[in-house]
């Protein structure tokens, strides 16, 4: 583990100047509902990618490739914005 900084070394205003540092905090364990994605049904509209308040929708070459469960907190917004006819993302109870 990296050495903890003293208060004198911290940036003014509690900003984080290395935003990638948040990757160290895997927040997926907070989830009580899990989004389940169907590759067959997905039309790659990327609504989920636009609306995900984290960055848990994985996309490669303009195509949805899955959900990053290390960071997905299970808010369900992706399932909600998935077009009604498609329903490629559905929420299921998280099993420990």
């Amino acid at each position, binding site marked *: 583990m990296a050495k903890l900084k003293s208060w004198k070394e911290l940036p*003014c205003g509690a900003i984080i100047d290395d935003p990638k540092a948040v990757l160290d905090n895997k927040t997926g364990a907070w989830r009580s509902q899990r989004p389940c994605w169907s590759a067959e049904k997905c039309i790659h509209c990327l609504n989920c990618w636009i609306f995900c308040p984290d960055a848990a929708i994985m996309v490669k070459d303009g195509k949805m490739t899955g959900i990053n469960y290390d960071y997905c907190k299970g808010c369900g917004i992706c399932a909600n914005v998935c077009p009604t006819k498609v329903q490629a993302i559905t929420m299921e109870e998280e099993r420990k």
Partner: protein
Amino acid sequence: MILAKTGNEALAYAMRQINPDVVAAYPITPSTEIVQIFAQYVSDGKVDSEFVAVESEHSAMAACIGSAASGCRTMTATASQGLMLMHEMLFIAGGLRLPIVMPIASRSVSSPLNIHGDHSDSLASRDSGWMQFFCETVQEGYDTLIQCVKIAERASLPVICAVDGFILSHCMERIETFEDAPVREFIGAYKPNWNLLDYKQPILVGPATMQDYFFEFKRSQIEGMNQALPIIEAVQAEFKQKFGRGYGIIDEYRCEDAEAVVLLMGSACGTMRDAVDTMRNQGKKVGMVKLRVFRPWPAQVLKESLRKFKTVAVMDRADTVNAWGGALFTETTSALYDLDARPKVLSYVYGLGGKEFSLADAATVLEQAYAGRKEDLVTYIGVR
């Protein structure tokens, strides 16, 4: 230019000259006109500011925080219940070290409902990490608001610039304003420490911290306030050099050889000056110490000043309802505690909800201070 302006008009006029990038505000008595007049300036194209009409004071401060975090010079105005509704967001602006500048027309806090002037609103915000200035006159409000922009940005701290509700906000006074150009020259261009929208240097604003870093970030914020006083003094000196009017952290009035003084903030200082003059004419050695800066708490400055006197009467225009008098009283006594020879300190609470503070009241306080004694720990002036 010499103009006749009420406190609200003068503060709005200063805001026009400051020409902030963003003003997000929700008007409330007695500071309504600051927002109203500024909105008119926006409509008339007299400022370049983006005016955000929000749905509440909580939203006003939230919008100000977002704006300031995006590197914009940001202002708002409020009072009383509005400041109370902002309370949560005040701490966030403080912790993020955002130099938001907020004139307020100080007013009592409900209940019972009352729209008139006292210091309950700003003093209730005293632990939120904002600097606080209290002004005696409309002129001082105008001058101080201009100084506040520079002080806030140099100290990276938000600031409240308070004028007494109605007594100053609605009373017309002859004031000497400056031309726009020297005001803008004085405050200079704003160079933010960081900018949330700078995609070339991405940062994260408002992180969650745990036991390992929260206290360190707060310690860093506390240091910002610790370092603020010399910044205020420097800006006041620069202001005096450029515009000729000088202000201190405290301003002493007829304190040379005084045996007893009254310490207070805001518009009542004007009444007290008159009462001091009357007693001086009677050969009684009394004076007044006007406190302009309440946050940061200028303990050292007060200690140096007040140690010279036998008695100090401290007058609070707000009660902390703590069964031990007002904030000014408790903080003054604590500042004086480690002196070897301490002046006697008398506590007064006055003028709540705009209750008149008369020359006779001022004279009574001075007489008691001069005698060095009174009966109760806290005296509530004029209460039946």
